């Protein structure tokens, strides 16, 4: 096997040194009746060229070459080339968790920078080294609030990503954390009145997403005020991190649970992504996940270490703030490099381009379909209601090697033939125009079909 650095002679010599006669002796501790005496029934050993061919073939079956208007928690932004150049260095790629600080300063310092930038962007005071993804970060953020407030129930906006809601439900079920949902209004934002009514003295926190699942920016100020008034915390989920370049961060939140995939992480069919939790300094000891801190060595030289480990499972076991151990470090490094490349000015300009493309697309679509939640500010997503079922429209778009917006019926039946469209800096005007053209055609044909029917009826 080409990964194994041993010759038959090496194996012989080692067995001899150990004092064994055969490899079988090594497995003597395993009861004989369980020992496998046949080959595993898996594909035969393949050449590297065959492996590459296999995955190229899979790639061709996987939407390679399609233009997409999908967002909904996974965003297609340009990834600067240097991200992969740098994360591919074996020193980053093949290192473990930086437990041995003296030979892990590369990883540690980069996480420290990551934490800093997440703080700068979110307006929070501390950020951790990463969580599995935005959905689990939201769930853990809620659990944090539960621990901090000593209350157990949770108020959740319906405009939170439906899969995030599902994940939260899974996490919450057995922890005795009742969830209640608050609807959105015609403006696509959480219904503030309903929110106020939902909060009880048992409410640990309110969880909203902004920009929310519809791309609409919530009035976080107002939400925070309501939550805080009732002694509940506010947990804000951010799924589209590029929005932070131009959208005021939810500074009033107590916990921000973010998905940083937009910052240089490939779509990758849904993962690995990069969750993060950011919060106020005073809550740091209830945070889940790893934290890197600055310190000094024996010569007073600046250095970085994993710190506050007493929150974690390997020290606290069943009393830990979370069971998380392995996180998303390398993905956080991608995020870190992306944030560094765009930086203070670039992130703003990038966000502006997203805004401009989306504004153009929304205005074009609204000439034919119905733009929902039109009155609220939005970032790079919007909902269009059509006369025809969006699945039908999308299957026509597929013929043009285009993937249309995400049909919402399955998540929000009340929205009917609505679909969630997304534009980023990579969406070209011509792609928008083509998609709009197909929607317009659909509307025209539905209209003419209707007119025909009316004609006949008349």
């Amino acid at each position, binding site marked *: 096997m080409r*990964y194994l650095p041993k010759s038959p002679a090496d194996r012989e010599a080692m067995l001899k040194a150990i004092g064994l006669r055969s490899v079988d002796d090594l497995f003597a501790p395993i009861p004989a009746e369980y020992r496998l005496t046949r080959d595993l029934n898996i594909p035969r050993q393949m050449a590297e060229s*065959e492996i590459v061919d296999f995955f190229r073939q899979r790639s061709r079956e996987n939407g390679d070459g399609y233009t997409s208007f999908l967002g909904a928690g996974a965003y297609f932004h340009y990834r600067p080339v240097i991200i992969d150049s740098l994360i591919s260095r074996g020193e980053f790629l093949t290192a473990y968790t930086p437990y041995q600080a003296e030979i892990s300063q590369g990883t540690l310092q980069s996480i420290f920078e990551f934490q800093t930038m997440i703080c700068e962007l979110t307006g929070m005071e501390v950020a951790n080294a990463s969580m599995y993804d935005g959905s689990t970060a939201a769930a853990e953020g809620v659990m944090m609030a539960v621990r901090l407030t000593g209350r157990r129930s949770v108020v959740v906006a319906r405009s939170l990503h439906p899969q995030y809601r599902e994940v939260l439900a899974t996490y919450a079920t057995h922890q005795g954390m009742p969830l209640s949902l608050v609807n959105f209004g015609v403006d696509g934002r959480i219904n503030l009145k309903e929110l106020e009514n939902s909060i009880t003295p048992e409410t640990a926190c309110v969880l909203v997403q902004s920009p929310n699942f519809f791309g609409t920016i919530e009035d976080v100020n107002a939400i925070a005020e309501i939550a805080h008034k009732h002694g509940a915390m506010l947990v804000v989920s951010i799924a589209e991190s590029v929005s932070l370049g*131009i959208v005021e961060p939810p500074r009033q939140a107590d916990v921000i649970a973010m998905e940083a995939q937009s910052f240089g992480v490939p779509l990758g069919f849904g993962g690995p992504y990069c969750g993060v939790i950011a919060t106020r300094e005073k809550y740091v000891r209830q945070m889940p996940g790893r934290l*890197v801190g600055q310190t000094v060595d024996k010569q007073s030289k600046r250095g970085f270490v994993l710190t506050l480990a007493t929150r974690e499972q390997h020290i606290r076991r069943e009393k830990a703030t979370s069971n998380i151990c392995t996180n998303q470090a390398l993905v956080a490094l991608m995020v870190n490099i992306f944030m560094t490349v765009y*930086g203070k000015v670039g992130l703003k300009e990038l966000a502006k381009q997203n805004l401009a493309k989306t504004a153009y697309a929304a205005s074009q679509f609204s000439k034919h379909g119905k733009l929902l939640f039109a009155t609220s500010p939005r970032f790079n997503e919007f909902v269009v209601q059509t006369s025809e079922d969006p699945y039908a429209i999308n299957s026509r778009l597929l013929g043009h090697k285009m993937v249309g917006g995400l049909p919402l019926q399955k998540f929000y039946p009340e929205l009917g033939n609505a679909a969630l469209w997304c534009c980023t800096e990579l969406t070209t005007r011509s792609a928008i125009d083509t998609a709009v053209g197909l929607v317009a055609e659909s509307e025209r044909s539905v209209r003419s079909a209707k007119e025909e029917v009316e004609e006949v009826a008349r």
Partner: protein
Amino acid sequence: MKHMTRKATRHVNQNEGLIFEKSSPGKAAWKLPPLDVPEVDTTALLGSSEREDLGNMPEVSEIEIIRHFTRLSTWNYAIDLGMYPLGSCTMKYNPRVNEAVARVEGIANGHPYQPEKISQGALRIMQTLSECLIEITGMDAITLQPAAGAHGEMTGLLMVRAYHQSKGNARKKILIPDSAHGTNPATAAMVNYAVENLKSDSRGMVDIASLESQMNEDVAALMLTNPNTLGVFEQDIHKIADILHAKGGLLYMDGANMNALVGKVRPGDFGVDVMHLNLHKTFSTPHGGGGPGSGPVAIKKALEPFLPTPVVITKPDGTLSFDYNRPHSVGRVRAFYGNFGMFVRALAYIQANGPDGLRQTTEDAVLNANYIRKGLEGAFDLPYSTPTMHEVVFSDKLQAKKGVRTMDIAKRLIDYGFHPYTTAFPLIVPGALMIEPTESESKEEMDLFVEAMKSIAEEVEEDPQTVLDAPHTTRVSRLDETAAARKPILRWKPA
């Protein structure tokens, strides 16, 4: 330090400050294409939601970023540089073809919500990997959704709970051996089970008598790591399974140590009901400085209804699809389908090995651990003499007499050009030195390791201070962790 130059030397190495210290207004590493749609008035669009400025975000050029991270990287140790014998972590070679195929366009850029019609490639990868893992574990079904080992544990225990609940009683507690990894009890707590410790016997295995006495209808499952964290195969596994099953309990296996078993024995065959795998250990996906991982959970038939949604199925027309209609599912543990990029890498690893390669891999992993055990016996105390599988655990008992503890020896190992072993775990061995070489180490590298460890043992006798002050060859010396935790500085701030 007589031998250390055989393995490592010091060499001039670039310092590097924080990126914020290099920032200056007007530098940029980015450039956007010209806008092909009308410019917008952001204030008009966003109103009070418009952001003013981005605080202390850096402004640097591309060459500075390349240098920044290249320089930082040179302060890291890595598998690519040498042996990384962290026990329980299975730091094996991360094949580069895995990275290449994970970056093939349609695989790297597939959107999780793209229509299934144009997702057949990704679905096929998930299905093929699932089939391989089911065969390797001897289980009946699997979910790939969990993002890491601990996440797999949670998913597994959720299914355990759902299973018991379906029988009318969710039960109250999970038995966990005292040698277990911290995630095991932490997970049990998250699924709202009480944790009951199970003690190990003198062989370092589950104490059967204790298990028998502690097992009852309140126990939902035993979470067993096998081989356990001492690197010891639970020889009474049959009995253990029987004891659990007799009282309706389930046997959960923490599969972190599957590298000792793949192709040689299958947990499904020895009575395991639920288990998780760590693709980032056994299946060679890179650790990346702490993640990402992937923690598939494999189960026996009886637990299948409870799998998280969605599940990949084959439709009558032969195409693959996600099945969301699973009324008994424990729900979703993560958005989308899991760390798909890791599935790609793990499958590429399995393909590169085939049945013969996987078996040889396991054999070499166990051979290596035994070779190290043999080499270090005598120089270090071996608290359990039970046969070793893929890792061996010594203690610092002999060295402690001179005031030198496992962490000191670990730090000294750095000077010899090695990454330390795992220290202070498992908890049942005071001052543990937990060494897992994996199959990726050559005889030459291990001989150097044994030589280094023995040399340190000698140093402890002759000159303990050198060991206590180690490391001596690194850019920074031992860091003050107490100060770090006392007054945490968790982010940079302008002076």
